[in-house]
């Protein structure tokens, strides 16, 4: 059942997508083939998929931890930027130094940078009751302006022909490649490791249980002694820290420097990935690859059949629409099939999409 909804969603996206693009005067079936099929069978593209999926998976894993507990952090974009900036700060301070400690220091600061940015909505939520959806969203825009300011002013490369970007990072500040001769950098296995760890933590530890229970049944959680405040803090710090780590990995890996074009919407795309992966870290790994496929395949389709780049967004949004729709159909089947199990916790969770897969786990 866990897999039914995503599979239905992807299938529906392919069918409706083909029809829609045919209607719009493009080669609809060709578009689907070029984006979703051909790319998969081209080994050259696999490394691209992995590199593109890594930051998405990492960010989405962090978000999913919060979403499970009904903490709606949609500020991952800003946390990603701040993580990248904090790590870049270390890099710029150590441009003249060498040593294997530099990269780990950048990572740590990246994580802390993301956490610090996420701590603002956490603090506002726990002390004043401010809605974290709104505060974290607003902070994304503030983060972008901080980035612009640093690029235009203090952090501009003095040797860079007056272009707003930092100096290139040194070898000690750049991610090593884990598969020689490819683009697969340290961030790729790291993202997989993060997802696996998160999976184990969520499944096996008290903290994981806490997030789950708070999300599913807040009242029961309170009785059980799980504080709402600590849940909010855990959720936001996990989301911010992982978004920040993804940020510094992108900066120290594929970018190799900090530029104003650094934010490309990963923080928002990661929300889609989290849902497509059903808030399960393993599902998120797969979902990140599917999203990466829409990007990489979409670029191929532009060159081969002249599909406009806007098609990528249309496919992504349709996939999410269909997933959210398919979810309920699958859920209804469960409800009708096993009424005694599924009814109560689902209602308690205000029937949130997020809640369903865990509802089964709790009742099982």
């Amino acid at each position, binding site marked *: 059942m866990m897999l039914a909804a995503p599979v239905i969603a992807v299938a529906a996206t392919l069918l409706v997508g083909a029809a829609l693009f045919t209607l719009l005067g493009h080669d609809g079936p060709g578009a689907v083939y070029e984006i979703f099929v051909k790319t998969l069978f081209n*080994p*050259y*593209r*696999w*490394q*691209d998929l*992995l*590199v*593109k999926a890594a930051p998405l998976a990492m960010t989405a894993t962090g978000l999913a931890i919060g979403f499970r507990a009904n903490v709606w952090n949609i500020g991952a974009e800003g946390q990603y930027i701040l993580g990248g900036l904090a790590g870049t700060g270390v890099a710029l301070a150590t441009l003249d130094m060498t040593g294997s400690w530099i990269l780990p220091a950048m990572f740590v600061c990246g994580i802390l940078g993301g956490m610090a940015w996420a701590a603002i909505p956490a603090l506002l939520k726990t002390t004043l009751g401010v809605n974290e959806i709104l505060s974290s969203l607003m902070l994304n825009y503030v983060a972008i302006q901080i980035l*612009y300011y640093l690029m*235009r002013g203090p952090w501009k490369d003095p040797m860079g*022909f*007056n*272009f*707003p970007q930092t100096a*290139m990072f040194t070898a000690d500040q750049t991610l090593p490649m884990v*598969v*020689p*001769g*490819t683009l*697969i950098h340290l961030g790729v296995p790291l993202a997989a490791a993060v997802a696996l760890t998160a999976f184990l933590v969520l499944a096996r530890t008290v903290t994981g249980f806490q997030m789950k229970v708070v999300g599913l049944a807040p009242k029961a959680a309170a009785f059980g002694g799980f504080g709402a405040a600590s849940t909010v803090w855990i959720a936001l710090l996990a989301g911010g820290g992982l978004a920040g780590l993804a940020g510094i990995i*992108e900066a120290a*890996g*594929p*970018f*190799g*420097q900090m*530029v104003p*074009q*650094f934010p*490309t919407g990963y923080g928002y795309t990661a929300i889609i990935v989290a849902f497509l992966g059903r808030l399960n870290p393993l599902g998120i790994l797969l979902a990140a690859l599917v999203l990466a496929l829409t*990007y*990489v395949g979409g*670029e*191929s389709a*532009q*060159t*081969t059949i*002249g599909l*406009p*780049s*806007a098609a990528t967004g249309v496919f992504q949004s349709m996939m999410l629409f269909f997933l959210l729709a398919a979810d309920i159909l699958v859920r209804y089947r469960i409800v009708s099939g096993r009424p005694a199990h599924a009814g109560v916790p689902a209602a308690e969770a205000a029937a949130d999409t997020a809640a369903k897969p865990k509802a089964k786990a709790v009742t099982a």
Partner: protein
Amino acid sequence: MFELSRRKLLAAGAALGLAATSVAPAFAQDGKETVKAAFVYVGPVGDYGWTYAHDQARLCLEKNLGDKVTTSYVENVAEGPDAERVIRQLAQDGNDIVFTTSFGFMNPTIKVAKQFPDVKFEHATGYTTGGNANMGLYNSKFYQGRAVLGTIAAKMSKSGKAGYVASFPIPEVVMGINAFQLAAQKINPDFKTQVVWVNSWYDPAKEADATRALLSQGADVITQHTDSPAPLQAAEEAGAIAFGQAWNMESFAPNAHMTAIVDQWCPYYTGRIQALLDGTWEADNVWLGMKEGEVEMAPFNAKMPEDVKAAAQKIVDETKAGTYEVFTGPIKDQSGEVKIPEGEVIPEGDLLKMDWYVEGVQS
């Protein structure tokens, strides 16, 4: 399944490594029967500005060379890792030459060019190829067009003040502002150019509001270094005059649009593909202007007075003949100090990293 993909992936990685290390004899080039060319765009082809002009040149190239060239493009490519991936993909897909048309594509192009010595790369507006023999740089001297605009502006302005809607203070933009002001100053020594930075290449509403602000502060000529026709429309609404950017934008402002700097990339693209066909392609670093047909002025508006047309045309003719160079001293900076002495010309290398403004620019 994971195992299978991982093994295949390693194989793919090895194949790529091989491709990167097997260096082909660099200069033994034969001509080609046909050329496959690809273009990487930073914006949508429908931006009616920078990217649109490149894409029009691509179409023009196809028309010029017919069956001998096939082209494709990828639009809306984010600068950074996405660009690197797209460029590599195009190189792997058997393109003979890849044109990357935004400054932010420079480092990605350098990285990919290293891995594909048999594929040619051409990067627009960058300053280094990172030592790649298969990578060329090209750019246009748009500032030559700015000098024409400055001349028209000073001739037609009653207030002696132009409004300049600008994106970011990078050398390309700074040099354009200076060229505009220097040319205007030659006509009217008291001429002033007021710059408003909108901190975006593309934000129509903000560009329009910046134009309105400039107009209400006494400017009666508007020029821009942003991508949308919004400033023209705002000028049209207020009865001021303005100029198109990157492409003829007359349809948006039939009365205000005096002329436009048209980015004419077609001759360059055609020439480079022809060189590939002939087997004479070599990495170059060119900065071409009006003389080479890279920078063109859109037809002057019929409402422009004859003497203004003549003065503007004179700049165009002399630039083409090589007898007019707007960056010729004496040039004073904003504080009034002579920065370039009489008769001296600012070297191209200095223009490409220009970060100071000439007298009369208010920014």
